[in-house]
């Protein structure tokens, strides 16, 4: 253990409320809350507002708990990567033991409470999501295979399915489509990030595709996944969660995302370095708009349906 690592250790009881909140990865949680909320509202069953609110809260807590457990397990590489160096554990604000206890407690608490507030199908999917993110992705895949993002992305894709299950008590083609949309979107989103945060993953020895297969292969993968994503996103327009607004949004966003992926694929490293990865950064930003746009359109269709509009 180096002097730096000794000095960076926090002592128990020193962490503030905000430090524990940061362990929940609030930015990721906002995506979880939004997609779960859309899944809940898009379902064809009415939910009492308080039960809906409580369910979203417990889903968010479950997502946050898995974030805390991820930070506990990954504290060693978080200290190396520039992007994660300021997280509560590497910054010395929260001890690893506190993060483990906090994450474990919230995991059990959120699953039990979701089961009691909504139903056990939703609780079971939440439990599986936490297990998948912490054990399958964080502990197993992340440091072992460059496909970590592809398979691990499933964890982030479950929230709309949980929201749907809160309302209906089950799984359907629509909830599977919302899952698949996020599942297929995750790889190009993260690989675009990996292209311009290149030294981070390399130094932390995380087998990101950019490190193991090279940057040209990563560019090709982004294009292939974007091509596979488009029919799924457009296909959802013709189910009960879609409609003309969703179709219009999906057409525009998929055209833009495909153009971005095409631009990334055509570039080489010299061109990318010359303009400080401008295209890659632009596509990463667009990927966020892409996801929020699609789910926002689903939300709009379901809201309009309440007034006899929306849908086909």
């Amino acid at each position: 253990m180096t002097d730096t690592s000794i000095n960076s250790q926090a002592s128990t009881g020193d962490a503030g409320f905000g430090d524990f909140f940061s362990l929940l990865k609030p930015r990721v949680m906002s995506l979880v809350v939004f997609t779960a909320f859309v899944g809940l509202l898009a379902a064809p069953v009415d939910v009492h507002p308080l039960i809906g609110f409580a369910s979203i809260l417990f889903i968010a807590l479950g997502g946050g708990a898995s974030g805390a457990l991820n930070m506990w397990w990954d504290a060693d590489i978080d200290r190396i990567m520039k992007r994660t160096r300021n997280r509560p554990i590497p910054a010395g604000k929260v001890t690893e033991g506190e993060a483990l206890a906090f994450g474990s407690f919230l995991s059990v608490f959120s699953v039990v409470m979701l089961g009691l507030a909504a139903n056990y199908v939703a609780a079971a999917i939440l439990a599986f999501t936490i297990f998948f993110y912490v054990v399958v992705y964080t502990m197993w895949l992340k440091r072992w295979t460059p496909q970590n993002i592809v398979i691990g992305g499933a964890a982030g894709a479950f929230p709309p399915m949980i929201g749907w299950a809160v309302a209906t008590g089950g799984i359907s083609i629509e909830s599977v489509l919302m899952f698949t949309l996020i599942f297929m979107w995750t790889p190009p989103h993260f690989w675009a990030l990996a292209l311009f945060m290149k030294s981070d993953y390399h130094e932390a020895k995380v087998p990101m595709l950019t490190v193991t297969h090279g940057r040209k292969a990563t560019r090709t993968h982004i294009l292939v996944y974007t091509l596979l994503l488009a029919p799924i996103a457009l296909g959802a327009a013709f189910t009960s969660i879609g409609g003309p607004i969703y179709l219009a949004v999906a057409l525009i966003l998929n055209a833009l995302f495909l153009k971005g992926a095409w631009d990334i694929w055509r570039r080489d490293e010299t061109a990318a370095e010359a303009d400080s990865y401008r295209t890659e950064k632009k596509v990463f930003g667009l990927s966020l708009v892409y996801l929020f746009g699609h789910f926002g359109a689903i939300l709009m269709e379901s809201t309009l349906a309440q007034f006899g509009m929306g849908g086909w």
Partner: protein
Amino acid sequence: MALKVEHELHQRRLGRNVGLGLVLLGFVALVFGLTVVKVERGDFSATPPQAEGSE
């Protein structure tokens, strides 16, 4: 002259304790609200509502 300087650590602990207190209060209110909703819907009744009505 009284010297009463509060250490930053104590401020942080106070903030954490107040935060936790508010979270617990919110949780109690949420469970109370959920209980009211579920009782009104008949989720906790021993016999299903339709069976009672058919008597």
